[in-house]
Each structure stands twice: as C-alpha cells, then as structure tokens.
C-alpha cells in the first residue's frame, strides 16, 4: 500500500476567513467561531455534522479541547499536529486519512489569532530554542536572514530580487479586498526600508495581523452534496529537517524538496502542471527557496525567477495571488489562509486576481524557521 491511495479521496467543500486586520477586543476563539460559522455556511453543512476537528490558535496549549468546547461539539477524531505555520497542511492530510479510514466523516480545520490586537504576541515563538537565544537573534527574522545570506553567498541572489517578492505580494494584496495592506510599493521603497536582521528589512517580513480561518473536508463521494465547486485533495506530504536554524543541514535547501516530491507523486503531477502557486511567505526569501525546492526553477535560480514582475499580477507565473503573508494576512500562522486561496482559485472565486482556467493548485506551508515544510495539491473534479 502506498500513499497514492489517498489521492482524491476527500474534498474541501467550505472555506472562510474572518477578522483579518486589527480587531481589538476579540479573542482567538471568538474570531475562530466567526470563521467556522462562515465556512459551514459556505459548505451548506450543519455544525452537528462536524465529527473531526483540527483546531489551532497561538494561545491555547489544548487547542482542540478549547475549540470543541467553544463550538459545543464532541468530535470522534481530533488532531493538533503542531509544526508552526505549516500545521494546517499536515492536518489536511490527517483529515483525509481520518475520513478515508472511517474515523470520522466531516473534518473541520480551524484557526484563530489576535496576534496584532494583542500586541504582536505570538505564543508559538515563546519557545525560543534554548541554545540560540543566548546569542540574541531577532527571532524568527534572524533565522531566515541567515538562510538568505547563505543563498546570496552561494548563488548570487540579491536584495533587489528579495524586494521583487515584496513588490509582487503588495501588488496582489492591492487587488484583494480582504488583504490587510492594500497599497502597492516599489523596489526603491523596499530597498530603503529599515534593516531588522541583515539582509532582511522590515519590508521583507510578513505582517502581524489578527485573523481566523476555517475549512470543511468531506469524502469524495459526498463532495457534490455540499457547497460550491469542491476542491479535491490530490496530494499532500510533510517533511522536517530541524528545529533550530543552526541545525538545518543546508541553509539553501529546505525540506520542501521532500514534501514536494512526495505530494507530486501522490497527485501524479509535476511542477509544470500546476496552475496556482501559493507559497508560505513568512519572509521574502521563502518564496525564492520554495520555488526552487518545489521544482518551479533550478536551485539558485529563484532570484531570477521572481524578477521583472514575473510572479506579480500580469506576470507569467503568478504566485501568492491573495497577497500572501506579506500583504494579506499573517496572524502568527498563515498555512490555512494559503490553502484557502488555492481552493478559491480553483472555484473561480477570485475576481480581479483570478488565474484563468485554474484546475490544479499547490499550497505550500512552512513552520518554525524553515523547519517544517508541508505541501498540498488540490484539483478540480476534472483532475480526478
């Protein structure tokens, strides 16, 4: 038996986001609750049907217990897989497994955070690795800065190329009514921004916002009963190489190489088949690393790949059409928002930023300091 048996066995039938921005006075579970209600409505499914739960916040150690109680449900399957921002991609795969194995029928993946209105408090970052904290890195920025510096050293990647990622993200964000930052920017402005941890400036960093999201997953044979057009889960895989950045085997190559190749294998597709690319852009360097590691270009060519507006609106290879963590939303963990944009593109729901004839979408998650990588691939019914 191989993982390919899971291909297309479950589908996303409802998605929603809520509270993107600054919502002082709202707690994480309250924002999550609003997103859950909207996702259930989007799917046309009742809360009583939720028997599988994957809940995450930045502030609850027992997030599934807190969320199940809050929602007033008693699920027969729960998973709190916690790998940082990529957790939701892992949870999606576990949801598919749970449904396929008969542990439950309807899985809710939900997230809520008030990281911005609560003063930028990312509880997940409190567990600063004990060795590294002795040396006062700006966590998590310095970890990514070290990866960027090494990539620049080995491949000649430039700060201008990093800035291209930011300019593209902001241009997409300007087209997304839900994005927190909706003003475009230019290379000059990005390059002049205040340095936080060289070579990354404050504009190379994702936002800190509030935000909640929810996604409803059912078996393939139930997908047409609910919601709008279903997005089928064709492939998914997670991989990890380290927790602390100094333990990463190669600072220029992430575990996305493994998660990506396994997800492609499960889905039976390759990078060139993908219509929609959503990559977890906690920092500008992430997009360059993941484009390389997921096979959209060769190692070392990510900088050139993102240049001259190629991943921006109107470019040949649109990336992060919602504006990503840099321009749309990043409440500490972005993975669920990343998958939701992939699903919305497949539904054709994206208005001005819609990619024409989108059939296959990849949403890639990152957690820790490039520590966890998790790739998901969704397709329309035509891809089954």
């Amino acid at each position: 038996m191989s993982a390919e048996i899971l291909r297309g066995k479950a589908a996303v039938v409802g998605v929603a986001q809520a509270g993107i921005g600054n919502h002082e006075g709202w707690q994480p579970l309250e924002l999550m609750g609003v997103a859950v209600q909207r996702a259930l409505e989007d799917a046309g499914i009742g809360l009583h049907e939720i028997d599988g739960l994957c809940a995450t916040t930045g502030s609850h150690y027992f997030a599934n217990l807190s969320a199940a109680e809050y929602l007033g449900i008693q699920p027969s399957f729960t998973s709190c897989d916690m790998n940082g921002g990529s957790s939701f991609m892992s949870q999606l795969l576990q949801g598919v497994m749970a449904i396929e194995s008969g542990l439950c029928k309807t899985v809710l993946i939900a997230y809520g955070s008030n990281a911005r209105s609560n003063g930028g408090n990312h509880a997940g970052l409190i567990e600063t690795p004990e060795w590294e904290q002795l040396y006062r890195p700006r966590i998590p920025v310095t970890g990514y800065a070290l990866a960027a510096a090494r990539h620049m050293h080995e491949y000649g990647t430039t700060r201008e190329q990093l800035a291209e990622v930011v300019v593209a993200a902001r241009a997409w964000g300007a087209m997304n009514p839900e994005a927190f930052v909706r003003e475009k920017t230019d290379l000059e402005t990005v390059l002049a921004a205040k340095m936080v941890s060289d070579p990354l400036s404050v504009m190379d960093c994702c936002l800190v916002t509030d935000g909640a999201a929810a996604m409803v997953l059912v078996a393939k044979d139930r997908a047409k009963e609910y919601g709008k057009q279903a997005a089928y889960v064709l492939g998914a895989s997670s991989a990890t190489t380290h927790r602390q950045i100094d333990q990463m085997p190669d600072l220029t190559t992430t575990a996305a190489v493994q998660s990506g190749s396994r997800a492609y294998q499960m889905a039976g597709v390759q990078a060139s088949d993908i219509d929609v690319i959503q990559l977890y852009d906690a920092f500008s360097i992430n997009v360059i690393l993941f484009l390389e590691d997921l096979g959209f270009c060769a190692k070392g060519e990510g900088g050139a790949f993102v240049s001259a507006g190629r991943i921006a609106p109107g470019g040949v290879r649109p990336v992060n059409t919602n504006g990503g963590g840099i321009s749309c939303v990043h409440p500490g963990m972005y993975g669920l928002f990343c998958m939701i944009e992939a699903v919305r593109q497949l539904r054709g729901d994206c208005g001005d930023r819609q990619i024409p004839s989108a059939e296959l979408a990849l949403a890639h998650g990152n957690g820790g300091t490039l520590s966890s990588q998790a790739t998901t691939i969704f397709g329309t019914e035509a891809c089954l």
Partner: protein
Amino acid sequence: MVEQSLSGHGPWAEYQARLNAGQFCIQQGGDGQFFFYPRAIAPGSGSNDWQWVAASGAASIYSLSRIPQRPERGGDYYVAIVELKEGPRMMTQLRLQSDELPKIGDTVEAFVEQQEGADALLLFKHGLQEGAR
C-alpha cells in the same frame, strides 16, 4: 551496548559545567562523528556510545547576519552560524577583533566568556591576526 547511567546530571548540564570551568567540549560518537548541541544519544544513529572531547575551537563562518542596534545599547552585533573544524555547526555571536567586517567563509576562533552570576557563554573571535591565535 552499556546501559547509560542516569546518575549525576544530563549532557547539557555537563557541557555547561565544563564551559564554566573554561573548557569547550563537544561530543564524539563511537563512529567518529562529532555532534553539537549536547545530547543524551547521538543524532541519526541513536547510539549512547559517545564521549566528551575538547573542541579545537577552530571554525569558519557558514552564515551571518548583522543586527542593527542603537549605539547607546551597544551598537550593531553579528549573529552567525559557524562550522567547527570537527563538523558540527552552531549559532553564536562574533566578537570583532579588528576593523575588518566579517563575511561568510572567514576563520573564527572559539573563546569562553565568563559572566558574573551567570553561566559562561561560548563566543567566537573574528579578525585575529595570524600568529596572535
């Protein structure tokens, strides 16, 4: 394989005790591979066959980030990942010994900074003149 004794303290505390005594030690597995940070079993092999060895202190900069900081708070500082001559990598802070700015690939050398009322800290010097080492 000999069963690992739980008497005394764990490897991390032992590492720190040695550092507090002025000695920078790392672990070497029975297969000859060095590893750092301190662990109860060797990463990858899972073996408890390892021993403490004095580290050479010789290293090179694998990656580097300058962190801006106001002069009144001590000025900019450099966080680096250095690669020990023995192989393992570690995060550290550099102490510049000259006007030469550090860059990836440069040679650095470990030293133990004793701190009053706190554990000793392992740091690396950059910009040492040949012969001064």
